[in-house]
């Protein structure tokens, strides 16, 4: 379906990325009206020497959120839920969660990450089918970052709550509803949700080298199943799912309704009720990204071209590889190039206003002034060693700073918001999540 030279170019990028170690295995699939194309390179399991194939399932991480959103939207279309419905009306058993109850957070706010939930609450509650119910019982003290509807802050917990709403309203355990939808409704074969699914397929896994030893990247906790910790799919199946969404205009309309713009993001323009809006709030290219330990994934759906592409890879520099692939994919699928979002504003002269400590659930971000008009970021968890230490942030304008994570990393933007009267920012937006300034010193 795509030109031969495009196919060869895409294959060459994957082969080069495997050869230079940026990825272990990568698979790319395009599905559209006129057919399908897939290419693959590398090994699904390096120490076990298992080659990746186009049937290999890769963890799709938060792309699962788009599937959860689809299932919610099916209920909305059926009239069983509405966007404006408060969460605790949809699932009264969640009334014990103060933040949901007191701010009357709605289904639409959960779908678009505008509920203000301090949302990276990730912990184990077991392996069984009752994980979402158990998880809900443990999050009654979840915090709030801002007034619901005011801003955006990516919240895994929001999608776990949506998963629980699906269970309560649909009468089926989420893992079963998800499996039935993908396998039976969508007719997809290479879907792995539970560990027993993963042992019967080629499942791409990543190992990190720590002190000279290979350490497997563990699967995410089942408690985060609805936000994307466990689902793995083959890329042809993911692309088929993506293009299949387009058969239902009402669903697409719902998922892509522009809710909140994020102009300070390197990668995309904003968020709809479930979908990431890629090329501007009015544009139609939408999708989602995903990341689990060791795997990153990307899904793009182009309604006008009736085409979807999916890419996932294991390894340390997947984002950088995807950024090489995306222009080729846009060309191959006749989707225009991505707009340049680089801000036109001037870089600030006084960087001391950014200095300070910013926090969200479980994480602390300390900003200090570095050398040559840069900021330095150190990030650590309440219970974890520093995850980022001395990351250099270069100002692009008053709000947006650019950085690169790791030697092979792709550029990423971080931003500051809610500047007070003396020009000091109160919010720090890092990896799609807000953190609020505290009174603590940064050093």
């Amino acid at each position, binding site marked *: 379906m795509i030109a031969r030279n495009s196919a060869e170019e895409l294959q060459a990028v994957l082969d080069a990325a495997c050869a230079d170690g940026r990825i272990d295995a990568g698979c790319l699939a395009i599905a559209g009206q006129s057919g399908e194309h897939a290419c693959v390179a590398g090994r699904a*399991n390096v120490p*076990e020497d*298992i080659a990746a*194939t186009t*049937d290999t399932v890769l963890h799709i991480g938060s792309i699962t959120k788009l599937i959860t959103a689809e299932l919610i939207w099916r209920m909305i279309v059926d009239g069983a839920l509405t966007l404006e419905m408060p969460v605790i009306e949809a699932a009264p058993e969640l009334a014990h969660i103060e933040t949901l109850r007191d701010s009357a957070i709605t289904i639409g706010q959960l779908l678009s990450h505008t509920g203000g939930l301090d949302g990276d609450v990730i912990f184990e509650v*077991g*392996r*069984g*089918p*009752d994980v979402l119910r158990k998880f809900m019982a443990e999050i009654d003290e979840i915090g709030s970052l801002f007034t619901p509807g005011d801003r955006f802050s990516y919240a895994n917990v929001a999608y776990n709550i949506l998963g629980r709403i699906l269970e309560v309203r649909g009468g089926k355990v989420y893992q079963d509803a998800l499996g039935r939808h993908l396998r039976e409704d969508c007719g997809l074969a290479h879907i792995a949700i*539970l*560990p*027993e699914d*993963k*042992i*019967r*397929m*080629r*499942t791409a*896994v990543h*190992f990190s080298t720590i002190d000279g030893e290979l350490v*497997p990247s*563990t*699967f995410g906790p089942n408690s985060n199943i609805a936000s994307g910790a466990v689902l793995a799919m083959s890329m042809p199946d993911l692309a088929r799912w993506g293009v299949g969404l387009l058969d239902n205009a009402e669903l697409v309309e719902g998922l892509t309704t522009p809710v909140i713009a994020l102009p300070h993001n390197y990668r995309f323009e904003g968020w709809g009720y479930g979908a990431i809006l890629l090329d501007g709030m009015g544009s139609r290219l939408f999708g989602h990204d995903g990341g689990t330990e060791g795997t990153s994934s990307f899904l793009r759906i182009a309604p006008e071209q009736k085409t979807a592409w999916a890419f996932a890879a294991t390894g340390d520099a997947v984002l950088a590889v995807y950024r090489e692939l995306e222009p080729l994919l846009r060309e191959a699928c006749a989707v225009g190039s991505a707009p340049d979002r680089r801000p036109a504003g001037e870089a600030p002269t006084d960087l001391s206003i950014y200095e300070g400590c910013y926090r969200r659930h479980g994480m602390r971000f300390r900003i200090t002034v570095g050398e040559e008009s840069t900021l330095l970021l150190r990030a650590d968890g309440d219970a974890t060693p520093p995850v980022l230490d001395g990351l250099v942030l270069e100002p692009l304008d008053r709000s947006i700073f650019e950085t690169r994570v790791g030697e092979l990393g792709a550029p990423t933007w971080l931003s500051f918001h809610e500047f007070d009267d003396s020009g000091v920012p109160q919010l720090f937006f890092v990896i799609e999540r807000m953190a609020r300034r505290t009174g603590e010193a940064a050093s």
Partner: protein
Amino acid sequence: MTQPDAADLQVRIELAAKTAHVPGLAFAVSLTGEMVSAATGVVNIETGVEVLPDSLFQIGSITKSHTATLAMQAAEDGLIDIDAPVSQYIPIQLGRGPEAGPFTARQLMAHISGLDGDLFIDTGRDDDALARLMVLCKDLDFLTAPGRYYSYSSAGYAILGRMLEVVYGQSYEQILKDRLLDPIEATRSTCFAENAAFCRTSVGHEVDEDGKARVVSLTLLPRAMGAAGLSLFSTVEELIAYANVHIFGHDVLNRASAEAMRAVQTELPDGSEWGLGWKAIRNGGTRFVGHDGGTIGQAAALWFVPEHELAIAMCANGGDTQHAWQDLAYPIFQEVCGGVPEPDIPEPVKNVADLSRYVGVYDNIGVTMHVTAESDRLKVVAKSKFFGFDDVVFPLHPIGEGRFRCELYGNDKIVNAFFDPDEQGRPALFYAGRLHRRVDGAVV
């Protein structure tokens, strides 16, 4: 005898797997502590991933010997008394019926507790799976009084596993890892598919008579029966390392305990013996010790002869695994020991006394058996209560008073026996290692 040549072994396993329509197979032999291993075929016909000697397979009930090893280790450490009532450790009623009574860890290990056993109930994936199963064990029937007859009981091994959990305050799987697998460097072995997914891991296959295989639908069995052997994935190489612990002794199990585990506790109708977690078969002047295991579509065997310091392990994922085992292991056993691990079974007799006393319906938790008489033999229709298995129909040929032999799944040396455990003239049926009580009400 010297160790088999690796190249020669490779040729032999490829032929044996092909002949027996086994999709994937791994095999290992160890003589005087030196191991040779080989593998052939695929772990999964759908993925086409090849089997290597360190690939994981489900080893089924071989795990019972691991559980018994852990119990003996706990006894060495003074944490349990294998001759004390189990109720001392698990203070709830386990089992019911007129013949209910106190039973011990020793009886559980030797399958002589009298408890019915094929309990395959899913109590979830969480760490409390085994504790939850115990609550259900209160409804388990005693087929006979404790200590009286052998009847293979997987539920008994689940109870043994729970005893270990109570004593150590950890999950069975964690105890197995910390106290046995890690110390013997069997680090690929795991009870969890979450871990197995990082290795080449075999799935079971159903193979038809033409050798056409398909992957079974159920690739993982309930966690609660892990201590009885539904969960553990291992490799032939790690099984050999484990067998060598039993042959040579190790920090995890001293030689006296190892010898106690393989000493005879009870004799079966086919003349074989059961120890504490191990079966033993005498043949050609040699006593073979080992265990077989199976899950859905997978089969494994681990047998060893301590005096020859010989151990053989095979894991296979479908097809006629019994014949593959005989093709591969028996020539080695024959050469080293002058015999094979198979009991001598008498040939059928022609003129037999009245068979009508055996006609009836027999039952236990796993199977209902309908027995009818046909001139010089009995006919059995066995209806499994689990996993939607098809009925199995087979003849029983008399070989002596109350004893019959039959052919099942390619093995023609299975012995069934009838006897009277309930002292009311109603024979029970010993079949496939389990007792079945007469339930049709016809007092003979």
